């Protein structure tokens, strides 16, 4: 056990108390803790504590002595004074003593049984007589001077008259090192732990004996308040996009299917729109003015070179509300309201997919999405933006391959190279189809790209289970440093 003071640093050098103990031992050499306690005007427990500390430094040695002792029980205390019940009876029995007289004796119940057991008395008719030489001296002696080796003592323990107890005693002796130290002289001045206002103002700090701390021991840890490591990654991405000249979007989690699917040219019978993939709500929102253009695009391709999807398009389906399945629903509404180029915007927000939750799948997760609308922006520009973004995130190798998204054409997937893992898919992108932009009156090309933020978080934070981002262990949050030792984006 260490003496704890303030933040709990163990003292590097001898404390004042240890020094006082050594000073006493210089003359005593070796002594019991209670004796030393008397000399030092402290409790024996405190002395033992100081002695152990000094022992750690090699200046004293503490000897732990365990003593077995016997003590009387309440019953035993009475017998020690009056004699054992059988002794009392034995004294009472005189020639001619009747059993009936004996029965009146207060020690009869226990004593008579013992006498009979030991065979010290005989009962003949109504008379009780002692056997010749009957004596309980040996028992009395075991009671007065108990000894672990004496079977009589053991019997008295069994009878609940005596009890065995251990006492621990400490003997403290000074070591040659300790003696050498005392010979050099000890500084027994009063020690100062916390510097007081008074000491500072009065100048008495100049003579104060400031206690030294052990710098090798970390005190009780302090935990700063801080933002979540996942939020930090989101903040980093936001910062990069703001630096790249993007305007941030924020919007509703609940979207009508029209903005979540139909405006993005996702056919009404598309599998992603089914109940098993999307969280539907009972609520509906009336369609915005001009929705008919979207409808006609679905049915026949509107005024573009597109064929449309054909089939049927139902208003009721478009009015129904869902928990947004992507933040593209925000981008497309922003474009519908801002048709004049240039538009560069992004959003980071929670999106929802009706997935069975496990270590790598969540029903809700953060998605980051960006759009660029301008005259003459190209698919090549899209690759350029992605390369720039991923480079700034720390991923130096980026490559692209063909992909498919219902509302972009051409489409691509971006992959980044991570040392020790390989090529990892990081996000999808493409140019919004004309079927998406034309009905909203957008005439410039729109580059769009998105990525799953949690994937990067999982890699960077070394998580095996995505759920821990949202059901975090406080210890994990406390231990994860704010500054990441980055290595190629991870």
């Amino acid at each position, binding site marked *: 056990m260490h003496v704890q003071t303030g933040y709990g640093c163990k003292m590097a050098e001898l404390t004042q108390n240890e020094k006082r103990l050594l000073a006493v031992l210089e003359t005593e050499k070796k002594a019991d803790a209670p004796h030393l306690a008397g000399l030092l005007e402290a409790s024996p427990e405190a002395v033992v504590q100081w002695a152990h500390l000094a022992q750690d430094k090699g200046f004293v040695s503490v000897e732990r002595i365990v003593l077995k002792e016997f003590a009387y029980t309440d019953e035993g205390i009475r017998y020690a004074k009056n004699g054992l019940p059988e002794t009392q009876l034995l004294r009472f029995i005189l020639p001619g003593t009747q059993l009936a007289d004996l029965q009146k004796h207060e020690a009869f119940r226990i004593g008579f049984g013992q006498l009979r057991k030991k065979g010290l008395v005989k009962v003949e008719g109504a008379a009780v007589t002692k056997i010749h030489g009957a004596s309980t001296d040996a028992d009395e002696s075991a009671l007065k001077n108990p000894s672990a080796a004496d079977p009589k003592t053991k019997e008295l323990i069994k009878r609940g008259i005596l009890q065995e107890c251990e006492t621990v005693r400490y003997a403290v002796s000074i070591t040659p090192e300790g003696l050498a130290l005392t010979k050099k002289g000890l500084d027994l001045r009063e020690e100062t732990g916390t510097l007081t206002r008074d000491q500072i103002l009065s100048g008495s700090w100049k003579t104060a004996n400031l206690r030294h701390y052990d710098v090798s021991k970390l005190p009780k840890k302090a935990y700063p308040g801080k933002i979540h490591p996942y939020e930090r990654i989101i903040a980093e991405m936001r910062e990069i996009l703001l630096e790249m000249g993007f305007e941030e979007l924020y919007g509703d989690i609940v979207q009508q299917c029209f903005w979540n699917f139909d405006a993005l040219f996702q056919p009404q019978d598309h599998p992603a729109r089914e109940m098993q993939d999307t969280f539907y709500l009972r609520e509906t929102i009336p369609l915005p003015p001009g929705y008919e253009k979207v409808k006609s695009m679905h049915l026949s391709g509107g005024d573009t070179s597109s064929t449309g999807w054909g089939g049927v398009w139902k208003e009721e389906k478009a009015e129904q509300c869902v928990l947004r399945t992507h933040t593209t629903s925000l981008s497309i509404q922003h474009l519908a309201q801002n048709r004049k180029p240039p538009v560069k915007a992004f959003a980071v927000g929670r999106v929802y997919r009706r997935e069975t939750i496990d270590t790598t799948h969540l029903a809700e997760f953060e998605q980051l999405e960006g759009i660029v609308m301008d005259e003459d922006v190209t698919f090549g520009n899209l690759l350029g933006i992605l390369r720039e973004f991923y480079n700034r995130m720390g991923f130096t190798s980026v490559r692209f391959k063909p992909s498919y998204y219902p509302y972009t054409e051409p489409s691509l997937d971006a992959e980044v190279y991570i040392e020790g893992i390989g090529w990892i898919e990081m996000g999808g992108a493409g140019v919004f189809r004309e079927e998406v932009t034309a009905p909203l009156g957008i005439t410039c090309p729109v580059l769009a790209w998105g990525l799953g933020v949690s994937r990067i978080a999982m890699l960077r934070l070394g998580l095996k289970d995505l759920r821990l981002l949202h059901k975090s*262990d406080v210890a994990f949050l406390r231990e994860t440093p704010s500054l990441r030792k980055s290595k190629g984006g991870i």
Partner: protein
Amino acid sequence: MAVITLPYKYLERLTRTDRKTILEKIPLIGSDVERTEEDHADVEFFPDRPDLFSPEGVARAMRGYLGIETGLPTYPVKPSGISFTVDPKLASIRPVLGAAVIRGIKFDDESIQSIMSLQESLHWAVGRGRSKVAIGIHDMDTVKPPFRYIASPRNRKFVPLDYTEEMTMDEILEKHPKGRDYAKIVRDFALFPLIVDRDDHVLSFPPIINGERTRVTIDTKNILLDTTGTDKRAVGFAVNIICTAMAEAGATIESVEIGGMQTPTLAPAERVVSVKECSRLLGVSLTAASMAELLRKMRFGAEPEGADTVKVQVPCYRADIMHDWDLFEDVAIAYGYDRLESHPPRTFTVGKAHPVQVNAALAREAFTGLGYLEVMPFTLTNEDVLYRQMRREETRGVLHVMHPISIENTVVRTELLPLLLEFLTLNRHRELPQRLFTVGDVVLDCRTHQQAAGVSTHPDADFSEAYASADAVLHELSVDYTVKESADPAFIDGRRGDIIVAGKTVGVFGEIHPAVLNAFDLEHSVAAFEFDLRAVPGYPAL
């Protein structure tokens, strides 16, 4: 996503090159190699390219991409002389029929495996689980033309595939495994679709099951393909994709007559596209000749027509070509994404953070200054946590999702505080004090806004701490507020205050009620507060 099995030997024979070359380049036409085994590879293709859902289709595309055989593949079709009639009563049930005769299939071939799995993939990708398109494959020589596609009474009996006894169509929906799987597509109709031959033998009860009579066996030489559905274009593509894949495998295709029309024709569609438009979209400079060449590599017929246009013949199996840009994507793929010049756009723009996020960041700063640790709970939760455990009434405007994945995720959160208490439960074994906060979205009546909440738990957490912390955060966010006694049952009476801004309650703070602590299994007192960030100056009206 469709994962297609590609047996190496078959694929090599069809592609006319080695497997290494094929596997190396296959991702570049838009796919993911899922796994490679000793004798085959499993490759995932995108749902917009059902023409790649067979080894024959993949080989056709790869021959083009690798330059082995480019340009439009042609498939001769001659009339079979067979005809179908379509019952007008099917108009509201399942009106569209497509059919073809496929001759000269060798059934010990991989081609049979391929046609079966192609049929399944098409049911999934084009057929929307057979509702939009369903495909039947029959041994042609077990039945006699002409065929009739009719709307039949439901008590009509026949022996369905894999059975030996006759069943009525109603019984099939009830007892046959396929009947049970797909019953919902036809159940509500008074009459059921049925295809029969000259002698009234049943070929198929689409989209449920074929008859046992026309079962395809190892001895089958000629196939009759029937494809029914609700969407003419989708049915047409399904027929074209199967027929051209079988033709690639060496079969000959014959058309049938349906309603006086010969079908399928397997003829290409035509599009005339602008070279300039394509160059501008992709950011590369193309000539009509170079663009035509790239398109031919993707198996289109393509010839320059003047300086700025290319006349394109789109193969009949390309279901994804709806718009000129779909062709431009193929130009980009043929060109190679990695060869495209990639630089960010040059227009000058200024970045701008959203005010909601700016405020949220300031709230985070205030909380962390007070020693609070941020957590990011889920937004989906349940009524027990949000209300019952909090001793609160259900908040008006809470949204219930219609088909929750579990009883733990039934509603979208309307408050944050209950979720913070859940966090304390989760972290009971961790060192105290614990001070946690969250800033995030809540949803009421379909509208999203942000709130902020904090909790502090340790043996001495009390009203004063809650008040002081709430005050500190509100002060940092310049919220002018007053306080009055609260009646929120989640807090202890006499130790709770409502935060009032402009006469409206925007938040609450205090000491959490012991019954709430019990409900969350917490052992120490909790000082807590939550408020609506719309009370912060500058929060935009959304």
